[in-house]
């Protein structure tokens, strides 16, 4: 490879990683909900869309920087998620014995209502937050004079990535080091045994749906400086989240992080070497490949290695 080719490759890899970090955040939210509730939340992308509108209006009306709106939109989305679980999903859980798919269908409905409401109130216009740093970047050449290759790091992408990392680290700490976090994991592994340990399983379900919504809400705020917003954007991100959880292994948090990065890098590579428009195709190529060659996802590989099989 010549120097310019290496440059393009590395630049694509960096872009993929940055995108993957955000994808991971979306995927973790979905995988948490899937683990504890055993359902696919098909309103996941729509929840992100709601959060993006929150960030958009905070920026447009009050000039609040999208990165600061993370601290507003995330708690709001948490309570929206708790409310959805408490008032819509829990009542449907009670008729679980009739048709377990009910809850999944319900999330589809929630998603439809959210995107239709957004369409009604905000019209189908494309919106964005024109932040001052939208196109600024850090260049390798500025820091290393005489570098043989030139690489750049987009400021908003990098900041978003760092935020995503920090949130993920915070979540990891919560899930592994606190009693409540352990209770969430215990509930996802064996809800009845968790009950015997004194875990209020219903409350853990609300907390988890709230957390999942908060995580995807945070991702929404991190996406808006680098993305367009329109009411029907959610569906696409629901699919992305779904693909990530399949690659990562259902219900596995670490798997979702790896799945997000894999998907981000793969999309970025497809966009560079095949064509921009092919990125979604690449996404589904990975999806199908994961289903065929690695049905348990990345998590199943890790499990096999630990057992020494």
């Amino acid at each position, binding site marked *: 490879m010549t120097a310019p080719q290496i440059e393009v490759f590395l630049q694509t890899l960096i872009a993929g990683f940055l995108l993957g970090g955000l994808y991971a955040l979306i995927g973790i939210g979905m995988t948490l909900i899937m683990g504890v509730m055993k359902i696919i939340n098909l309103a996941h992308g729509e929840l992100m869309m709601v959060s993006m509108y929150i960030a958009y209006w905070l920026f447009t009306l009050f000039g609040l920087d999208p990165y600061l709106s993370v601290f507003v939109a995330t708690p709001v989305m948490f309570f929206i998620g708790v409310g959805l679980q408490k008032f819509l999903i829990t009542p449907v859980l009670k008729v679980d014995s009739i048709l377990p798919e009910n809850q999944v269908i319900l999330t589809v409905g929630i998603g439809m209502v959210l995107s239709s409401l957004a369409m009604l109130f905000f019209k189908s216009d494309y919106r964005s937050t024109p932040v001052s740093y939208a196109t600024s970047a850090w260049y390798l050449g500025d820091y290393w004079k005489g570098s043989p290759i030139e690489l750049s790091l987009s400021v908003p992408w990098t900041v978003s990535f760092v935020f995503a990392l920090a949130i993920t680290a915070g979540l990891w700490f919560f899930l592994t080091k606190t009693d409540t976090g352990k209770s969430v994991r215990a509930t996802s*592994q064996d809800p009845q045994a968790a009950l015997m340990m004194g875990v209020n399983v219903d409350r853990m379900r609300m907390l988890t749906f709230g957390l999942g919504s908060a995580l995807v809400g945070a991702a929404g705020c991190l996406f808006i400086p680098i993305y367009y917003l329109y009411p029907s954007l959610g569906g696409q991100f629901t699919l992305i989240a779904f693909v990530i959880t399949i690659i990562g292994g259902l219900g596995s948090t670490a798997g979702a992080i790896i799945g997000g990065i894999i998907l981000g890098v793969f999309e970025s590579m497809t966009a560079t070497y095949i064509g921009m428009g092919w990125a979604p195709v690449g996404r589904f190529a990975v999806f199908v490949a994961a289903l065929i060659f690695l049905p348990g996802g990345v998590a199943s590989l890790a499990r096999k290695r630990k057992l020494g099989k």
Partner: protein
Amino acid sequence: MLEVRNIDVFYGDVQVLWDVSFEVKEGEVLALIGANGAGKSTTLKTISGLLRPKRGEVLFEGSPIHTEDPFRLIEKGIAHVPEARRLFTEMTVEENLDMGSLKGEARKLREKNKDMVFDIFPRLGDRRRQRAGTLSGGEQQMVAIGRGLMAMPKLIMFDEPSLGLAPILVKEIFNVIKRIREEGNTVLLVEQNCKQTLGIADRAYVLETGKITLEGTCASLLNNEHVKKAYLGV
């Protein structure tokens, strides 16, 4: 301490327990023995609040618990070491023990109690950071018992702790139950393994197809012709 009064329990439309009554007194080991499908686990699940009796009531220290939320029972002092262990297999041994001590006094004394569990089962101490799902069956049973002890319960219920274990491990587990009792705990032990169970229990009830058919001290049951024929194989 625990009083079960005339409970009828159903799975859907199918009745599993008929008018079951018994009592566990403070400081004793009470055994509930019976064959597969006799309703032993159902009885424990009803005490734990996982199943609701259609008729009858369950009293613990004088107050009814069959209407309580199941997650409150551990605070009241009832720990359930369930059938087939039901560990959190993706979590480490230590995390499983943490899950046993979420509430009250047990939470405060968590580290001390962990040392006590590792003292009873030294093997678990060596494997404290290992995922519970990767342990052998016997070790998993030890974690399940340890997890129950972590709650510092007034009453600890064991559901077939010897199930699927090698004889030498069964002996070890029964020795531990004996030790738990000697430390002043009250134990409700559900078993199929009658010989060993009657060896460590004070009193026993025999459960057959959902009904209590016999009760008495272990010595009297060991000499009972029916018990000898049906459960001891002599």
